Protein backbone atom coordinates (compact mmCIF):
# COMPACT_ATOMS: atom_id res chain seq x y z
CA UNK A 1 0.00 0.00 0.00
CA UNK A 2 1.40 3.39 -0.94
CA UNK A 3 1.97 6.19 1.50
CA UNK A 4 -1.06 8.38 2.09
CA UNK A 5 1.19 11.41 2.32
CA UNK A 6 4.67 11.73 0.95
CA UNK A 7 6.75 14.85 1.41
CA UNK A 8 10.18 15.21 -0.17
CA UNK A 9 12.63 18.05 0.08
CA UNK A 10 9.96 20.46 1.24
CA UNK A 11 11.04 24.07 1.55
CA UNK A 12 8.69 26.74 2.77
CA UNK A 13 8.91 30.53 2.69
CA UNK A 14 7.19 33.38 4.49
CA UNK A 15 8.00 36.17 2.10
CA UNK A 16 11.77 36.21 1.94
CA UNK A 17 12.26 34.16 5.10
CA UNK A 18 12.81 30.44 4.66
CA UNK A 19 11.10 28.39 7.36
CA UNK A 20 11.59 24.83 6.11
CA UNK A 21 14.89 23.65 4.67
CA UNK A 22 14.12 20.40 2.97
CA UNK A 23 11.76 18.32 5.08
CA UNK A 24 11.05 14.76 4.02
CA UNK A 25 8.74 12.16 5.48
CA UNK A 26 6.08 9.67 4.53
CA UNK A 27 2.89 8.62 6.25
CA UNK A 28 1.61 5.10 6.08
CA UNK A 29 -2.15 4.95 5.68
CA UNK A 30 -4.26 4.36 8.76
CA UNK A 31 -1.75 5.49 11.34
CA UNK A 32 -1.26 8.49 13.55
CA UNK A 33 2.00 10.35 13.07
CA UNK A 34 3.17 13.24 15.15
CA UNK A 35 5.47 16.12 14.35
CA UNK A 36 7.34 17.31 17.38
CA UNK A 37 9.79 20.04 18.12
CA UNK A 38 10.31 23.33 19.89
CA UNK A 39 8.56 26.58 19.11
CA UNK A 40 9.51 27.82 15.67
CA UNK A 41 10.83 24.44 14.55
CA UNK A 42 8.51 24.49 11.57
CA UNK A 43 5.75 22.12 12.64
CA UNK A 44 2.82 24.38 11.87
CA UNK A 45 4.57 25.54 8.71
CA UNK A 46 4.75 21.94 7.55
CA UNK A 47 1.01 21.49 7.96
CA UNK A 48 0.37 24.78 6.21
CA UNK A 49 2.64 23.76 3.38
CA UNK A 50 0.69 20.58 2.79
CA UNK A 51 -2.44 22.67 2.33
CA UNK A 52 -0.66 25.23 0.20
CA UNK A 53 -1.18 28.05 2.65
CA UNK A 54 2.44 29.17 2.30
CA UNK A 55 4.84 29.35 -0.62
CA UNK A 56 6.67 26.07 -1.08
CA UNK A 57 9.25 24.25 -3.14
CA UNK A 58 9.64 20.51 -3.23
CA UNK A 59 7.32 17.59 -3.66
CA UNK A 60 4.11 16.84 -1.78
CA UNK A 61 2.08 13.82 -2.78
CA UNK A 62 -1.27 12.84 -1.34
CA UNK A 63 -2.30 9.30 -2.17
CA UNK A 64 0.12 9.45 -5.06
CA UNK A 65 -1.31 12.70 -6.46
CA UNK A 66 0.95 15.71 -6.65
CA UNK A 67 -0.65 18.50 -4.63
CA UNK A 68 2.22 20.97 -4.23
CA UNK A 69 1.25 24.47 -5.24
CA UNK A 70 -2.40 23.68 -5.91
CA UNK A 71 -4.99 25.99 -4.36
CA UNK A 72 -5.93 25.17 -0.77
CA UNK A 73 -9.57 24.55 -1.55
CA UNK A 74 -8.67 22.02 -4.24
CA UNK A 75 -6.36 20.09 -1.91
CA UNK A 76 -9.06 20.01 0.72
CA UNK A 77 -11.55 18.66 -1.79
CA UNK A 78 -9.19 15.77 -2.52
CA UNK A 79 -9.65 14.54 1.03
CA UNK A 80 -7.30 16.45 3.31
CA UNK A 81 -8.97 17.82 6.44
CA UNK A 82 -7.00 20.52 8.22
CA UNK A 83 -7.80 21.45 11.80
CA UNK A 84 -5.93 24.73 12.02
CA UNK A 85 -4.02 26.37 14.81
CA UNK A 86 -6.48 28.45 16.80
CA UNK A 87 -9.42 26.29 15.69
CA UNK A 88 -10.52 28.59 12.84
CA UNK A 89 -14.10 28.70 14.06
CA UNK A 90 -16.64 30.72 12.09
CA UNK A 91 -17.49 32.71 15.18
CA UNK A 92 -20.51 34.53 13.78
CA UNK A 93 -22.15 31.40 12.42
CA UNK A 94 -24.06 28.85 14.48
CA UNK A 95 -22.62 25.44 15.28
CA UNK A 96 -24.94 23.90 12.72
CA UNK A 97 -23.85 26.40 10.06
CA UNK A 98 -20.21 25.68 10.84
CA UNK A 99 -20.83 22.03 10.10
CA UNK A 100 -22.92 22.74 7.02
CA UNK A 101 -20.20 24.90 5.51
CA UNK A 102 -17.74 22.08 5.91
CA UNK A 103 -20.12 19.79 4.05
CA UNK A 104 -20.51 22.34 1.26
CA UNK A 105 -18.43 20.43 -1.24
CA UNK A 106 -20.07 17.06 -0.71
CA UNK A 107 -22.61 15.78 -3.15
CA UNK A 108 -23.64 12.53 -1.50
CA UNK A 109 -26.41 13.56 0.88
CA UNK A 110 -26.61 10.13 2.45
CA UNK A 111 -22.94 9.98 3.28
CA UNK A 112 -23.08 13.52 4.64
CA UNK A 113 -25.98 12.61 6.91
CA UNK A 114 -24.10 9.56 8.18
CA UNK A 115 -21.00 11.63 8.86
CA UNK A 116 -23.06 14.18 10.74
CA UNK A 117 -24.49 11.42 12.92
CA UNK A 118 -20.96 10.16 13.47
CA UNK A 119 -19.86 13.61 14.57
CA UNK A 120 -22.72 13.85 17.04
CA UNK A 121 -21.81 10.44 18.36
CA UNK A 122 -18.25 11.52 19.03
CA UNK A 123 -19.18 14.97 20.30
CA UNK A 124 -22.71 14.92 21.71
CA UNK A 125 -22.22 18.39 23.17
CA UNK A 126 -22.25 19.81 19.66
CA UNK A 127 -25.71 18.44 19.05
CA UNK A 128 -26.85 20.16 22.21
CA UNK A 129 -25.39 23.46 21.10
CA UNK A 130 -26.48 23.20 17.51
CA UNK A 131 -28.17 26.58 17.23
CA UNK A 132 -25.74 28.43 19.44
CA UNK A 133 -23.38 30.99 17.97
CA UNK A 134 -20.06 29.23 17.57
CA UNK A 135 -18.06 32.11 18.99
CA UNK A 136 -19.71 31.60 22.37
CA UNK A 137 -18.53 28.01 22.71
CA UNK A 138 -15.79 27.14 25.15
CA UNK A 139 -12.28 26.42 23.91
CA UNK A 140 -12.74 22.70 24.17
CA UNK A 141 -16.07 22.80 22.37
CA UNK A 142 -14.59 24.91 19.59
CA UNK A 143 -11.80 22.38 19.22
CA UNK A 144 -14.37 19.62 18.92
CA UNK A 145 -16.19 21.73 16.35
CA UNK A 146 -12.99 22.26 14.40
CA UNK A 147 -12.28 18.53 14.33
CA UNK A 148 -15.88 17.93 13.28
CA UNK A 149 -15.61 20.40 10.44
CA UNK A 150 -12.62 18.48 9.15
CA UNK A 151 -14.54 15.23 9.54
CA UNK A 152 -17.49 16.59 7.58
CA UNK A 153 -15.25 16.73 4.55
CA UNK A 154 -15.04 12.96 4.63
CA UNK A 155 -11.28 13.08 4.60
CA UNK A 156 -8.75 10.31 4.28
CA UNK A 157 -6.09 12.39 6.03
CA UNK A 158 -6.48 14.80 8.90
CA UNK A 159 -3.92 17.42 9.82
CA UNK A 160 -4.23 18.62 13.40
CA UNK A 161 -2.37 21.71 14.52
CA UNK A 162 -1.86 21.86 18.28
CA UNK A 163 -5.31 20.62 19.31
CA UNK A 164 -4.37 20.77 22.99
CA UNK A 165 -3.53 24.43 22.94
CA UNK A 166 -5.16 26.42 25.72
CA UNK A 167 -7.32 23.55 26.89
CA UNK A 168 -7.65 22.01 30.33
CA UNK A 169 -5.95 18.61 30.70
CA UNK A 170 -9.20 16.71 31.19
CA UNK A 171 -10.67 18.10 28.01
CA UNK A 172 -7.47 17.37 26.15
CA UNK A 173 -7.56 13.77 27.29
CA UNK A 174 -11.12 13.40 26.13
CA UNK A 175 -10.38 14.93 22.74
CA UNK A 176 -7.34 12.73 22.26
CA UNK A 177 -9.37 9.67 23.18
CA UNK A 178 -11.93 10.57 20.54
CA UNK A 179 -9.20 11.18 18.01
CA UNK A 180 -7.97 7.65 18.56
CA UNK A 181 -11.51 6.39 17.99
CA UNK A 182 -11.82 8.42 14.80
CA UNK A 183 -8.57 7.05 13.53
CA UNK A 184 -9.62 3.49 14.23
CA UNK A 185 -13.30 3.61 13.27
CA UNK A 186 -13.36 6.08 10.39
CA UNK A 187 -9.99 4.89 9.11
CA UNK A 188 -8.65 8.43 8.88
CA UNK A 189 -4.87 8.81 8.84
CA UNK A 190 -3.67 11.62 11.07
CA UNK A 191 -0.72 13.96 11.17
CA UNK A 192 -0.57 15.63 14.52
CA UNK A 193 1.47 18.67 15.44
CA UNK A 194 1.88 19.09 19.15
CA UNK A 195 3.95 21.17 21.55
CA UNK A 196 3.05 18.73 24.28
CA UNK A 197 5.33 15.88 23.23
CA UNK A 198 4.36 13.46 25.99
CA UNK A 199 0.71 13.65 25.07
CA UNK A 200 1.41 13.28 21.38
CA UNK A 201 3.67 10.28 21.85
CA UNK A 202 0.90 8.56 23.83
CA UNK A 203 -1.45 8.89 20.90
CA UNK A 204 0.78 8.50 17.89
CA UNK A 205 2.36 5.45 16.32
CA UNK A 206 5.21 7.26 14.70
CA UNK A 207 7.06 10.48 15.40
CA UNK A 208 9.23 12.96 13.53
CA UNK A 209 11.20 15.60 15.36
CA UNK A 210 11.81 18.94 13.68
CA UNK A 211 14.44 21.48 14.54
CA UNK A 212 14.77 24.81 12.72
CA UNK A 213 13.05 23.57 9.61
CA UNK A 214 14.66 20.15 9.30
CA UNK A 215 13.81 16.63 10.38
CA UNK A 216 16.45 15.65 12.93
CA UNK A 217 15.10 12.31 13.97
CA UNK A 218 12.26 9.94 13.37
CA UNK A 219 11.07 6.65 14.71
CA UNK A 220 8.30 4.66 16.34
CA UNK A 221 6.82 6.67 19.16
CA UNK A 222 7.42 3.82 21.60
CA UNK A 223 11.12 4.10 20.81
CA UNK A 224 11.21 7.87 21.02
CA UNK A 225 9.26 7.82 24.26
CA UNK A 226 11.65 5.48 25.97
CA UNK A 227 14.85 7.09 24.75
CA UNK A 228 15.79 9.50 27.49
CA UNK A 229 18.58 11.15 25.52
CA UNK A 230 16.23 12.02 22.66
CA UNK A 231 13.58 13.23 25.04
CA UNK A 232 15.95 15.49 26.91
CA UNK A 233 17.70 17.03 23.92
CA UNK A 234 14.79 17.47 21.53
CA UNK A 235 11.64 17.33 23.55
CA UNK A 236 12.57 18.98 26.79
CA UNK A 237 11.45 16.38 29.29
Amino acid at each position, binding site marked *: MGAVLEVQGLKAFYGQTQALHGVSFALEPGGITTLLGANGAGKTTTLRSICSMVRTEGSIRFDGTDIAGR*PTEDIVRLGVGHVPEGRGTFTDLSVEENLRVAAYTRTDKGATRRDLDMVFEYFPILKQRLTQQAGTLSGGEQQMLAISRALMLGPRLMLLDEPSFGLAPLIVQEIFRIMRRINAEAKVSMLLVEQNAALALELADHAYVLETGRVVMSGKSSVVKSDEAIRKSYLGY
Partner: protein
Amino acid sequence: MEQLVQQIASGLANGAIYACLALALVMIFVSTDHINFAQGEMAMFSAYLAWQLLQWGVNFWIALPLVAFGSFLVGVGIERVILRPLHSAPVLSIVVVFIGLLTIFHSLAGAIWSHTIKDFPSPFPRVTFAGSGYIGPHQIGMIVVTIMLLLALFAFFRFTPLGLAMRAAAQNPASARLAGVRVDWMLALGWGLAAAIGAVAGTIVAPVVYLEPNMMASILLYGFASALVGGISSPGGAVAGGFIVGVLENLIAYFGNLLEKASGVYLIGNGEKLSVALIIVITVLTLRPAGLFGHVSVKRV
Protein backbone atom coordinates in the same frame (compact mmCIF):
# COMPACT_ATOMS: atom_id res chain seq x y z
CA MET B 1 -49.71 66.70 10.93
CA GLU B 2 -50.66 65.54 7.47
CA GLN B 3 -47.46 66.92 6.11
CA LEU B 4 -45.46 65.15 8.78
CA VAL B 5 -46.94 61.79 7.85
CA GLN B 6 -46.28 62.59 4.22
CA GLN B 7 -42.67 63.37 4.98
CA ILE B 8 -42.22 60.19 6.95
CA ALA B 9 -43.85 58.11 4.23
CA SER B 10 -41.74 59.62 1.51
CA GLY B 11 -38.74 59.29 3.81
CA LEU B 12 -39.41 55.57 4.01
CA ALA B 13 -39.66 55.37 0.25
CA ASN B 14 -36.34 57.18 -0.22
CA GLY B 15 -34.97 55.10 2.61
CA ALA B 16 -35.78 51.97 0.67
CA ILE B 17 -33.42 53.10 -2.07
CA TYR B 18 -30.74 54.11 0.39
CA ALA B 19 -31.13 50.72 2.06
CA CYS B 20 -30.46 48.94 -1.24
CA LEU B 21 -27.38 51.00 -1.98
CA ALA B 22 -26.13 50.68 1.58
CA LEU B 23 -26.60 46.92 1.39
CA ALA B 24 -24.63 46.73 -1.84
CA LEU B 25 -21.85 48.79 -0.27
CA VAL B 26 -21.78 46.65 2.87
CA MET B 27 -21.70 43.40 0.91
CA ILE B 28 -18.60 44.47 -0.93
CA PHE B 29 -17.04 45.96 2.19
CA VAL B 30 -17.57 42.88 4.34
CA SER B 31 -16.07 40.52 1.80
CA THR B 32 -13.25 42.62 0.39
CA ASP B 33 -12.70 45.51 2.85
CA HIS B 34 -13.14 47.91 -0.07
CA ILE B 35 -15.63 50.72 -0.43
CA ASN B 36 -17.12 50.69 -3.90
CA PHE B 37 -17.08 54.36 -4.83
CA ALA B 38 -18.41 53.45 -8.24
CA GLN B 39 -21.59 51.86 -6.83
CA GLY B 40 -23.77 54.86 -7.67
CA GLU B 41 -22.59 55.19 -11.25
CA MET B 42 -22.96 51.46 -11.82
CA ALA B 43 -26.54 51.67 -10.60
CA MET B 44 -27.16 54.66 -12.85
CA PHE B 45 -25.76 52.82 -15.85
CA SER B 46 -28.04 49.88 -15.10
CA ALA B 47 -31.00 52.24 -14.94
CA TYR B 48 -30.10 53.49 -18.41
CA LEU B 49 -29.95 49.92 -19.66
CA ALA B 50 -33.41 49.34 -18.26
CA TRP B 51 -34.65 52.50 -19.94
CA GLN B 52 -33.22 51.30 -23.23
CA LEU B 53 -35.04 48.00 -22.93
CA LEU B 54 -38.23 49.88 -22.22
CA GLN B 55 -37.63 51.96 -25.34
CA TRP B 56 -37.42 48.72 -27.27
CA GLY B 57 -40.82 47.72 -25.97
CA VAL B 58 -39.80 45.29 -23.27
CA ASN B 59 -42.15 45.10 -20.31
CA PHE B 60 -40.75 46.70 -17.16
CA TRP B 61 -41.09 43.56 -15.08
CA ILE B 62 -39.06 41.62 -17.62
CA ALA B 63 -36.53 44.39 -18.12
CA LEU B 64 -35.82 44.69 -14.41
CA PRO B 65 -34.63 41.11 -13.82
CA LEU B 66 -32.77 41.17 -17.14
CA VAL B 67 -30.87 44.30 -16.17
CA ALA B 68 -30.25 42.93 -12.69
CA PHE B 69 -28.78 39.77 -14.18
CA GLY B 70 -26.69 41.69 -16.69
CA SER B 71 -25.37 43.91 -13.93
CA PHE B 72 -24.61 40.81 -11.91
CA LEU B 73 -22.40 39.51 -14.70
CA VAL B 74 -20.66 42.87 -15.05
CA GLY B 75 -20.03 42.94 -11.30
CA VAL B 76 -18.50 39.47 -11.35
CA GLY B 77 -16.38 40.50 -14.32
CA ILE B 78 -15.11 43.64 -12.62
CA GLU B 79 -14.09 41.73 -9.51
CA ARG B 80 -12.36 38.91 -11.36
CA VAL B 81 -10.66 40.92 -14.07
CA ILE B 82 -9.93 44.33 -12.62
CA LEU B 83 -9.87 44.05 -8.85
CA ARG B 84 -8.59 40.57 -8.06
CA PRO B 85 -5.12 41.13 -9.58
CA LEU B 86 -4.73 44.21 -7.39
CA HIS B 87 -5.77 42.62 -4.11
CA SER B 88 -2.43 43.23 -2.44
CA ALA B 89 -1.91 46.71 -3.88
CA PRO B 90 -1.89 49.74 -1.55
CA VAL B 91 -5.20 51.29 -0.60
CA LEU B 92 -4.60 54.37 -2.73
CA SER B 93 -4.23 52.30 -5.89
CA ILE B 94 -7.47 50.53 -5.20
CA VAL B 95 -9.31 53.76 -4.44
CA VAL B 96 -7.99 55.18 -7.71
CA VAL B 97 -9.26 52.15 -9.59
CA PHE B 98 -12.71 52.68 -8.10
CA ILE B 99 -12.60 56.33 -9.15
CA GLY B 100 -11.59 55.16 -12.61
CA LEU B 101 -14.60 52.84 -12.75
CA LEU B 102 -16.78 55.67 -11.52
CA THR B 103 -15.72 57.99 -14.32
CA ILE B 104 -15.96 55.27 -16.95
CA PHE B 105 -19.55 54.38 -16.08
CA HIS B 106 -20.55 58.03 -15.71
CA SER B 107 -19.14 59.25 -18.99
CA LEU B 108 -20.11 56.11 -20.90
CA ALA B 109 -23.72 56.66 -19.92
CA GLY B 110 -23.48 60.23 -21.14
CA ALA B 111 -21.78 59.19 -24.34
CA ILE B 112 -24.26 56.47 -25.23
CA TRP B 113 -27.46 58.15 -24.16
CA SER B 114 -26.53 61.86 -24.00
CA HIS B 115 -26.77 64.07 -20.96
CA THR B 116 -30.27 65.37 -21.49
CA ILE B 117 -32.68 64.46 -18.76
CA LYS B 118 -35.00 61.66 -19.70
CA ASP B 119 -38.37 60.69 -18.43
CA PHE B 120 -38.55 57.22 -16.92
CA PRO B 121 -42.10 55.89 -16.80
CA SER B 122 -43.24 54.39 -13.53
CA PRO B 123 -44.34 50.77 -13.78
CA PHE B 124 -46.82 51.20 -10.96
CA PRO B 125 -50.43 52.03 -11.85
CA ARG B 126 -51.51 55.56 -11.17
CA VAL B 127 -54.48 54.82 -8.97
CA THR B 128 -55.88 56.79 -6.11
CA PHE B 129 -56.55 54.90 -2.93
CA ALA B 130 -57.15 55.41 0.73
CA GLY B 131 -53.80 56.80 1.68
CA SER B 132 -53.18 58.73 -1.53
CA GLY B 133 -52.83 61.97 0.32
CA TYR B 134 -49.82 60.69 2.16
CA ILE B 135 -47.98 58.53 -0.30
CA GLY B 136 -47.97 57.90 -4.01
CA PRO B 137 -48.25 54.56 -5.82
CA HIS B 138 -44.67 54.66 -7.02
CA GLN B 139 -43.37 55.30 -3.55
CA ILE B 140 -45.29 52.32 -2.24
CA GLY B 141 -43.90 50.37 -5.15
CA MET B 142 -40.35 51.36 -4.18
CA ILE B 143 -40.87 50.12 -0.66
CA VAL B 144 -42.53 46.89 -1.74
CA VAL B 145 -39.94 45.99 -4.37
CA THR B 146 -37.13 46.78 -1.96
CA ILE B 147 -38.62 44.68 0.81
CA MET B 148 -39.17 41.77 -1.54
CA LEU B 149 -35.59 42.03 -2.74
CA LEU B 150 -34.28 42.15 0.80
CA LEU B 151 -36.38 39.17 1.85
CA ALA B 152 -35.13 37.19 -1.13
CA LEU B 153 -31.55 38.03 -0.25
CA PHE B 154 -32.09 37.17 3.37
CA ALA B 155 -33.52 33.79 2.42
CA PHE B 156 -30.66 33.20 0.02
CA PHE B 157 -27.98 33.89 2.58
CA ARG B 158 -29.71 32.17 5.44
CA PHE B 159 -31.07 29.02 3.84
CA THR B 160 -29.03 28.10 0.79
CA PRO B 161 -25.64 26.35 0.79
CA LEU B 162 -24.19 28.91 -1.58
CA GLY B 163 -25.38 31.76 0.61
CA LEU B 164 -23.80 30.09 3.61
CA ALA B 165 -20.56 29.56 1.73
CA MET B 166 -20.50 33.25 0.77
CA ARG B 167 -21.06 34.32 4.36
CA ALA B 168 -18.33 32.00 5.55
CA ALA B 169 -15.93 33.25 2.88
CA ALA B 170 -16.57 36.85 3.87
CA GLN B 171 -16.18 36.23 7.60
CA ASN B 172 -13.19 33.92 7.61
CA PRO B 173 -11.59 33.31 4.21
CA ALA B 174 -8.86 31.04 5.57
CA SER B 175 -11.26 28.67 7.30
CA ALA B 176 -13.58 28.79 4.32
CA ARG B 177 -10.78 27.59 2.09
CA LEU B 178 -10.13 24.75 4.48
CA ALA B 179 -13.77 23.78 4.05
CA GLY B 180 -13.25 23.60 0.31
CA VAL B 181 -15.05 26.84 -0.49
CA ARG B 182 -13.64 28.64 -3.52
CA VAL B 183 -13.25 31.94 -1.73
CA ASP B 184 -12.15 33.93 -4.78
CA TRP B 185 -15.33 33.06 -6.62
CA MET B 186 -17.42 33.87 -3.54
CA LEU B 187 -15.97 37.37 -3.58
CA ALA B 188 -16.80 37.71 -7.24
CA LEU B 189 -20.36 36.54 -6.60
CA GLY B 190 -20.65 39.08 -3.80
CA TRP B 191 -19.66 41.77 -6.26
CA GLY B 192 -22.15 40.49 -8.76
CA LEU B 193 -24.95 40.55 -6.21
CA ALA B 194 -24.01 44.05 -5.11
CA ALA B 195 -24.12 45.23 -8.70
CA ALA B 196 -27.50 43.57 -9.19
CA ILE B 197 -28.92 45.18 -6.05
CA GLY B 198 -27.64 48.54 -7.20
CA ALA B 199 -29.26 47.97 -10.59
CA VAL B 200 -32.64 47.34 -9.00
CA ALA B 201 -32.28 50.41 -6.80
CA GLY B 202 -31.27 52.63 -9.70
CA THR B 203 -34.05 51.37 -11.93
CA ILE B 204 -36.85 51.90 -9.47
CA VAL B 205 -35.66 55.31 -8.32
CA ALA B 206 -35.22 56.63 -11.87
CA PRO B 207 -38.88 57.57 -12.34
CA VAL B 208 -38.63 59.77 -9.23
CA VAL B 209 -35.37 61.60 -9.85
CA TYR B 210 -35.41 61.52 -13.66
CA LEU B 211 -32.81 59.76 -15.70
CA GLU B 212 -29.56 61.63 -16.18
CA PRO B 213 -25.91 60.73 -15.55
CA ASN B 214 -25.73 62.74 -12.33
CA MET B 215 -28.79 61.16 -10.78
CA MET B 216 -27.06 58.78 -8.41
CA ALA B 217 -24.29 60.99 -7.03
CA SER B 218 -26.24 62.39 -4.12
CA ILE B 219 -28.13 59.15 -3.60
CA LEU B 220 -24.80 57.39 -3.28
CA LEU B 221 -23.75 59.86 -0.62
CA TYR B 222 -26.91 59.00 1.25
CA GLY B 223 -26.14 55.36 0.73
CA PHE B 224 -22.78 55.90 2.41
CA ALA B 225 -24.40 57.77 5.27
CA SER B 226 -26.90 54.94 5.68
CA ALA B 227 -24.26 52.24 5.65
CA LEU B 228 -22.24 54.12 8.24
CA VAL B 229 -25.23 54.79 10.47
CA GLY B 230 -26.30 51.18 10.34
CA GLY B 231 -22.81 49.81 10.61
CA ILE B 232 -20.65 49.26 7.58
CA SER B 233 -19.94 45.68 8.59
CA SER B 234 -23.58 44.73 9.09
CA PRO B 235 -25.97 44.00 6.19
CA GLY B 236 -29.00 44.20 8.46
CA GLY B 237 -27.66 47.41 9.89
CA ALA B 238 -27.23 48.86 6.43
CA VAL B 239 -30.88 48.26 5.64
CA ALA B 240 -31.99 49.76 8.94
CA GLY B 241 -29.63 52.65 8.37
CA GLY B 242 -31.18 53.32 4.99
CA PHE B 243 -34.68 53.72 6.34
CA ILE B 244 -33.45 55.73 9.32
CA VAL B 245 -31.51 58.15 7.16
CA GLY B 246 -34.34 58.44 4.66
CA VAL B 247 -36.81 59.48 7.31
CA LEU B 248 -34.26 61.62 9.14
CA GLU B 249 -33.42 63.54 5.98
CA ASN B 250 -37.04 64.49 5.48
CA LEU B 251 -37.69 65.24 9.12
CA ILE B 252 -34.77 67.64 9.29
CA ALA B 253 -36.00 69.53 6.25
CA TYR B 254 -39.53 69.47 7.63
CA PHE B 255 -38.54 70.92 10.99
CA GLY B 256 -36.32 73.41 9.26
CA ASN B 257 -39.34 74.61 7.33
CA LEU B 258 -41.40 74.75 10.48
CA LEU B 259 -38.73 76.81 12.15
CA GLU B 260 -38.67 79.21 9.25
CA LYS B 261 -42.44 79.57 9.24
CA ALA B 262 -42.54 80.10 12.95
CA SER B 263 -39.67 82.46 13.46
CA GLY B 264 -38.66 83.62 10.01
CA VAL B 265 -35.22 82.19 10.60
CA TYR B 266 -33.97 79.90 7.87
CA LEU B 267 -31.57 77.41 9.22
CA ILE B 268 -31.95 74.37 7.09
CA GLY B 269 -34.22 73.13 4.35
CA ASN B 270 -34.37 71.11 1.20
CA GLY B 271 -31.32 72.81 -0.25
CA GLU B 272 -29.05 71.44 2.45
CA LYS B 273 -29.71 67.76 2.12
CA LEU B 274 -26.24 66.90 0.89
CA SER B 275 -24.68 68.93 3.65
CA VAL B 276 -26.76 66.97 6.12
CA ALA B 277 -25.46 63.75 4.61
CA LEU B 278 -21.91 65.05 4.91
CA ILE B 279 -22.48 65.93 8.56
CA ILE B 280 -23.89 62.47 9.21
CA VAL B 281 -20.88 60.85 7.53
CA ILE B 282 -18.33 62.88 9.47
CA THR B 283 -20.20 62.50 12.75
CA VAL B 284 -20.54 58.75 12.52
CA LEU B 285 -16.96 58.26 11.39
CA THR B 286 -15.67 60.41 14.20
CA LEU B 287 -17.89 59.39 17.09
CA ARG B 288 -19.01 55.85 16.39
CA PRO B 289 -17.34 54.30 13.34
CA ALA B 290 -19.06 50.99 13.97
CA GLY B 291 -22.49 52.54 13.50
CA LEU B 292 -25.51 51.18 15.30
CA PHE B 293 -25.14 47.51 14.53
CA GLY B 294 -21.67 46.95 13.23
CA HIS B 295 -18.40 46.22 14.95
CA VAL B 296 -14.98 47.69 14.43
CA SER B 297 -12.18 45.27 13.80
CA VAL B 298 -9.17 45.61 16.02
CA LYS B 299 -6.10 46.69 14.15
CA ARG B 300 -3.32 44.11 14.47
CA VAL B 301 0.21 45.43 14.37
